[in-house]
């Protein structure tokens, strides 16, 4: 497997700056665990919501709705509260756990009281004036919500490829695992992006069915252009994933502290130049003799390491 990063290499410099910007913005999190219908599912969904609550304790504004509190009215109220306080640079993450239904036309998220349709949810979220939104719909039949939710600057992740995959899903378990597993941070920048979490959870979900010798009844997809086809494997070739790769879901380290020190700006600039050169070189890999590629890459990586060493002093 090629060890290239998830983003289009030639955009790395711009993306790096953008990511830094994202990290200084505030992130609003709304997690909703819907109705289980039976004690086993109530316990499972509630448990997952609690896990998210613990994970996001120190990560910005986080509201978790579960049980009797998970109603359409409360979802709208929380979103309205976020809308009042959010600035344009901020981010919004909405995670839905539970059961969904799809009748061929309309998707609904099962909550206490009246269910929330995908159209209603989209409308609620449209009123939160942030630069980027991430909606992670991890319910059964969530694929049926995609069309209503997709919009430019809104990354949508669904755990089923269509509304007809109606079985309870396991994707949520692995999405939450991604948020706390350092191995999900593939590029080791101490931030787990939406794309990294998606790839982690998608792979683990597929592996779950494979090792259990069960037919997979869920197939997660991602769409982040607002007008394209959701895909299982976002990459530069299919044009999906670029926005998700810039969307910082959760930070797991202190990596960005040094960027704020004016004395090290020159070093930081050099670091970014080197990173951009590395990305560009990797982009050209296929057209180069292997020996040349290795030599140039190694030289760049070594210099980058030295620059980082200086930055860390």
């Amino acid at each position, binding site marked *: 497997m090629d060890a290239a990063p998830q983003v289009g290499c030639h955009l790395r410099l711009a993306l790096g700056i953008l990511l830094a910007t994202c990290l200084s913005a505030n992130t609003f999190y709304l997690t909703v665990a819907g109705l289980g219908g039976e004690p086993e599912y109530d316990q499972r969904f509630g448990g997952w919501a609690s896990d998210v609550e613990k994970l996001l304790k120190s990560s910005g504004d986080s509201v978790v709705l579960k049980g009797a509190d998970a109603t359409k009215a409360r979802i709208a109220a929380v979103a309205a509260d976020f809308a009042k306080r959010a600035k344009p640079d901020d981010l919004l993450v909405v995670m839905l756990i539970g059961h969904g239904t799809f009748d061929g036309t309309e998707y609904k998220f099962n909550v206490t009281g009246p269910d929330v349709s995908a159209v209603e949810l989209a409308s609620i979220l449209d009123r939160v004036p942030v630069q980027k939104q991430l909606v992670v719909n991890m319910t059964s039949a969530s694929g049926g919500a995609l069309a209503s939710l997709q919009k430019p600057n809104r990354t949508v992740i669904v755990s089923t490829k269509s509304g007809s995959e109606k079985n309870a899903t396991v994707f949520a378990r692995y999405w939450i695992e991604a948020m706390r597993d350092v*191995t999900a941070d593939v590029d*080791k920048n101490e931030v787990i992006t939406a794309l990294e979490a998606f790839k982690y959870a998608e792979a683990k979900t597929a592996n779950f069915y494979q090792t259990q010798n069960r037919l997979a009844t869920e197939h997660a997809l991602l769409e982040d252009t607002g007008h394209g086809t959701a895909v299982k494997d976002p990459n530069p070739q299919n044009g999906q994933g670029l926005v998700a790769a810039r969307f910082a879901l959760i930070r797991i380290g202190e990596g960005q502290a040094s960027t704020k020190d004016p004395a090290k700006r020159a070093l930081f600039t050099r670091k970014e130049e080197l990173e951009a050169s590395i990305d560009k070189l990797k982009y050209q890999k296929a057209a180069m003799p292997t020996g040349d590629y290795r030599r140039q890459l190694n030289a760049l990586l070594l210099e980058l390491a030295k620059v980082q060493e200086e930055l860390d002093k």
Partner: protein
Amino acid sequence: MIALASVLLTAATLDDCHSHRRYGRMQQSSACYTSLATSPDGLTRAEAFWGVGDLKTANEQFKAAHARNPKDPYLKTRWGRLFLANDQGSDAAQLFEEAMEIKKEYPPAILGIALVAAERFDRKAVEYAEKALAGDPKLLEAQELIARLALEDGNPTKATEQADKALKLSPEALNAMAVHAAILQLEEKDTSPWISRIAKINPVYGEAHGLIGHIMVLNRRYDEAIAQFRRALELDPKLWSIRAEFGINLMRLGREEEARQQLETAWNNGYQGNSVKNSLVLMDSYKRYDTFRTPRTIVRLDKKEAELLRPLMETELERAITVFEKKYKFKLTAPVQLELFPNHEDFAVRTMGMPGLGALGVTFGYSVAMDSPTARKPGDFHWASTLWHELSHVFTLAATHHKIPRWFTEGIAVHEETAIYPDWGDRLDPEAIKAIKDKKLLGIAELDRGFIRPSYPAQVVVSYFQAGKICDWIVEKHGGFDKILAMIQEFDKRTPTVEVVKKHLGMEPAEFDKQFLAWLDTKVGRQVKNFDEWKTSMKTLSEAKQDELIMKEGARARDLYPDYVEAGNTYELLANLYVKNKESGKAIEQLQRYSDIGGRKPNVLKKLADLQTQENMKAAAAKTLNRINYIYPNDEELHRKLAGLYSELGDKSGAIREYEALVAMKPQDQAGARYGLASAYRSVNRIDDAKDQVLLALEAAPGFRPAQKLLLELNRTN
């Protein structure tokens, strides 16, 4: 040609054509059948096309004739025989059953059922053959079938008797003569008297050599089988079912080019049943495999898992070969070939037509085929135990020139599974318990039959268990493994089981059975006696709600049947309760017992390892996780955790091995895996390897700080 033949042979009948064929007058039979291809009678036409080998048209003719006469049991039976000849047993069986619905006790249809059952090594084959003969005492084919089945069951005395009965029915009973020849072949005696007798009647009766070859296959004497099949086809190249069996056995011995040739020839001539189709599909799939050679091993692995499994398989093969060469005092004369199939259906193709074989592995001479660990759910089987089992077959078959009886080679193989480590192999299971309780274990004189033609569904697995225990008993009570070696040497002289037992154990079979059962009772008797009580206890547990009751009843159930480690076992149940009550030490104790007794579910073992790690029992945790390598190595988390533990424990080679396995799994976190490997290489001063890996880590994640630091350190070291 057809018109001329019609003119020349206007008086010909099917019986005439069959007669020409029976006496090997192939040109005449072909002309005769051809002349009947335009007969006004549909059934005659069908038989005629069958006679010239045009099975497709024959089938169409049968279908049309059947449409006109759907109630004709003779027609149905003959059509069924066409399907049977074309390797379509299920379709054949349906027609035979329909015929019997119309005409109850119709011997030709009963014989048809017997033939279908015979292909499946179903006990019914003997029953139905005898029934057909009872219905028609002159039904030669039924009598010949009984003779052949007796030989398949490893009973040459009965086979001889039955073949002689067939010869009394007809002095031209060619298949009965072939049975006699097969018996001589088994005894490595001169078969020519019988072969000559056959040739005098039909000089091109290749079917005789086909039958002998079939018996040789069942006795795992593959080279002899191939020689017989080759001779059969020299006599009659249109014996498609024999050509198919020839191709399949060439494939088993790794002679793939010729195998493909033979199978494709059969296919292109209309013999397109599952055995040929699946074999060709399997051979096509070999392009997905890579082959790795060392002086003593040839390992063939699916490309997608080769990097991970190759080190494990090669290491384990080498270890087993070294141990066995010393133990069996026998040096292998060729490399051992091992094939692992990640798709169980592909492995199943390798075992088709072989009765009562293991569902996990099979050995053909020096060639071993097995399910890959990834072919099954994690914990379903222990690949290393299976590998040692199969490798022991390589030795016992080679040492006895394939003359070792089935029960003994399987018994030694099962014995070897736990001889190397007691927690490998299978535990005492409910099927074995039931067989012991119901007194269904076979006597030593007939144990082979338990593997070939089981009389109840679980008899094959029970026979494996019994044979293994017999070998355990011999080793424990009758002179150690040297006694096993002495018996192996005796079997190489073709001494029958009963004689070997008398000579080397000093007892008659009845005494053998008595003493063995008494010994077995000392080993498993308590669990067998407790079984019903255990079932009641487990039912109580399943309904219990209070922790205190579950704890008490769980411990009791565990002690009633300690070998039970399958779904719902009490070790896990108790451990979960102890975890809930925050009594980690006690939870560890339960799960350690589970592991020590042979429990092998990876998620349970990982739970044990996690608890051990939490209690700072790192060495124990590493040992627990390493067990999983021999069960289901296709687990990133396993390798990551084990690599970390080995690093902490200072086991540098272990850490390298595990990080290499992790990298081979192509994990999502490439940077982390390669950095770990780089650090492990660094710890043993493999500087160049460390550099390669750390650069690959940084290629995946250029900003990865620990990897950057390591790169700088390695650079300064250089």
